[in-house]
């Protein structure tokens, strides 16, 4: 009896279920297609510029990212991205413990600079224990000592046309997505002048009280505590002041930005 009364319904229900599943599968592949469609991406990206503007408003110029105590320092601080650059120029510098390394500061500045590690150590320093947040989701806490970027920029004199600070790095990192062109696989990053002037934005040469090691960016790396880890360029060789980063590498202002990540990584 029961079977008889159920019979006409069963195919109908199965039909509905398979229609729902096909609809779901179609919607998913539509999302995949939209994901690589530049116009759809720029619509989605509108949310990221909204986040940037709102966070800038909330943060103000000088609010400090939370700082932690000595006991909070992570026993193991994960190193990500390049951890052992094999570029010839870098290997030569590392061989001599970066004695010949010089940080170049150029672009839209009044005076170009060329600073050795000793020069940097002679400048005012800041030490901070902060949380490093990776875009992947994990966090580690470390102690960083270095020279505030503002100290360097004030010595170089930033021209009024300058809007961004670009960090050119020694490492090439090839994730295979943009081909092998040396231009496209060299790490770089950029930040705006508000972040450049922030007191916690430092170029660190020490980590956890020791000389910065190669895995974490020796001899010099950026700390940008109000944004995610990929902004904090390691193996910094040259700082360039620019009006726009459109002409650099992929034009999006950073290695990962050229691969689809947001330029503003405060979220």
């Amino acid at each position, binding site marked *: 009896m029961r079977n008889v009364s159920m019979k006409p319904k069963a195919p109908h229900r199965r039909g509905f279920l398979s229609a729902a599943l096909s609809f779901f*599968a179609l919607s*998913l*592949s539509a*999302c*995949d297609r939209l*994901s690589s469609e530049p116009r759809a*991406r720029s*619509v*989605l*990206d*509108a*949310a*990221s510029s*909204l*986040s940037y503007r709102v*966070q800038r408003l*909330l*943060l103000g110029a000088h*609010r*400090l*990212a*939370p700082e*932690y105590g000595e006991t*909070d320092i*992570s026993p*193991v601080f*994960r190193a990500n991205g390049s951890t052992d650059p094999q570029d010839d120029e870098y290997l030569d510098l590392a061989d001599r413990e970066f004695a010949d390394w010089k940080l170049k500061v150029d672009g839209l500045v009044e005076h170009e600079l060329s600073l050795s590690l000793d020069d940097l150590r002679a400048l005012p320093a800041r030490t901070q224990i902060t*949380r490093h*947040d*990776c*875009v*992947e*989701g*994990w*966090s*580690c*806490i470390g102690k960083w000592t270095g020279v505030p970027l503002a100290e360097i920029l004030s010595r170089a004199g930033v021209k009024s046309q300058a809007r961004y600070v670009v960090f050119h790095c020694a490492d090439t990192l090839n994730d295979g997505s943009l081909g092998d062109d040396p231009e496209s696989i060299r790490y770089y990053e950029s930040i705006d002048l508000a972040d450049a002037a922030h007191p916690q934005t430092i170029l660190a040469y020490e980590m956890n009280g020791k000389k910065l090691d190669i895995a974490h960016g020796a001899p010099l790396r950026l700390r940008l*505590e*109000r*944004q*995610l880890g990929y902004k904090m360029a390691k193996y910094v060789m040259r700082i360039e002041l620019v009006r726009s980063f459109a002409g650099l590498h992929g034009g999006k202002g950073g290695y*990962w930005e050229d*691969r*689809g*990540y*947001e330029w503003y990584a*405060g*979220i």
Partner: protein
Amino acid sequence: MLAREMTPSPAVAPETRGLAQDEPVEARWLRRHSGLVRFTHWVNALCFIFLLMSGLQIFNAHPALYVGAQSEFEHPTISITAKRADHGIKGETMIFGHAIDTTGVLGVSTTGGQVTPRAFPSWSTIPSYQDLATGRLWHFFFAWMLVLNGLAYLVFGFASRHFRRDLLPSTAELRHIGADIVAHLRLRFPRGEAAKRYNVLQQLAYLAVVFVLFPLVVLTGLTMSPGIDTAVPQLLSLFGGRQTARLIHFLATCGLVTFVIVHLAMVLVSGVWNNIRSMVTGWYDLRTEPR
């Protein structure tokens, strides 16, 4: 805007045409949901699907959750990983120290005919392939939409007294909760007069979703932002650190998914077309026997 009975309009109740306005009519049609509730409900549903699936994409980039400010990589509270097994690889989900073999769905699943190490399977993520950057684009776009939509709903809910009138259970209703639970388990749902109001289990479930789970998921989401942590460091103390916030974000999402499953099941068994019609057009048929 529950329980506002209307004189049936000709369009929806043709059989009552010709009756004088003041003649007593047993009202059949109830305008159950106001326009704003209906609109925000569907926008919220859309946002939730996109946030859930892009969120699983983001989770897959580092499929482990921790307690505290930082990640103790060796001791995750929850993790979904691929492990070497006798024959190839197996998916293993660790929850509070207990390992569960979840091969096929979590940890290891089949993508385009290939057995792939992947925390959440490709059919559950946006995009379906591994792409953290794009997952984040989708996630933050719909996060903004969810927040703006939610704020509109909250302002309306308080201003129109929707929360107080429709969602807040009376003490009498709360006293009957036992009987309501039994009736629900027997799949007997209120009809007629009693169907005009949300029952107490509905009220409590909706209150929990509106005032606990969604605020929790939004606030813990914000706590993961280093920018927001600088502007509002109190969030870190409130949730016990960024990694705990990430864990709570995940657990609150599990709570919301559970709600959605029960919600959809209840919609199905308590008169599916009547329920859907009332959430689309606003009109609920009081005479329809729940099926």
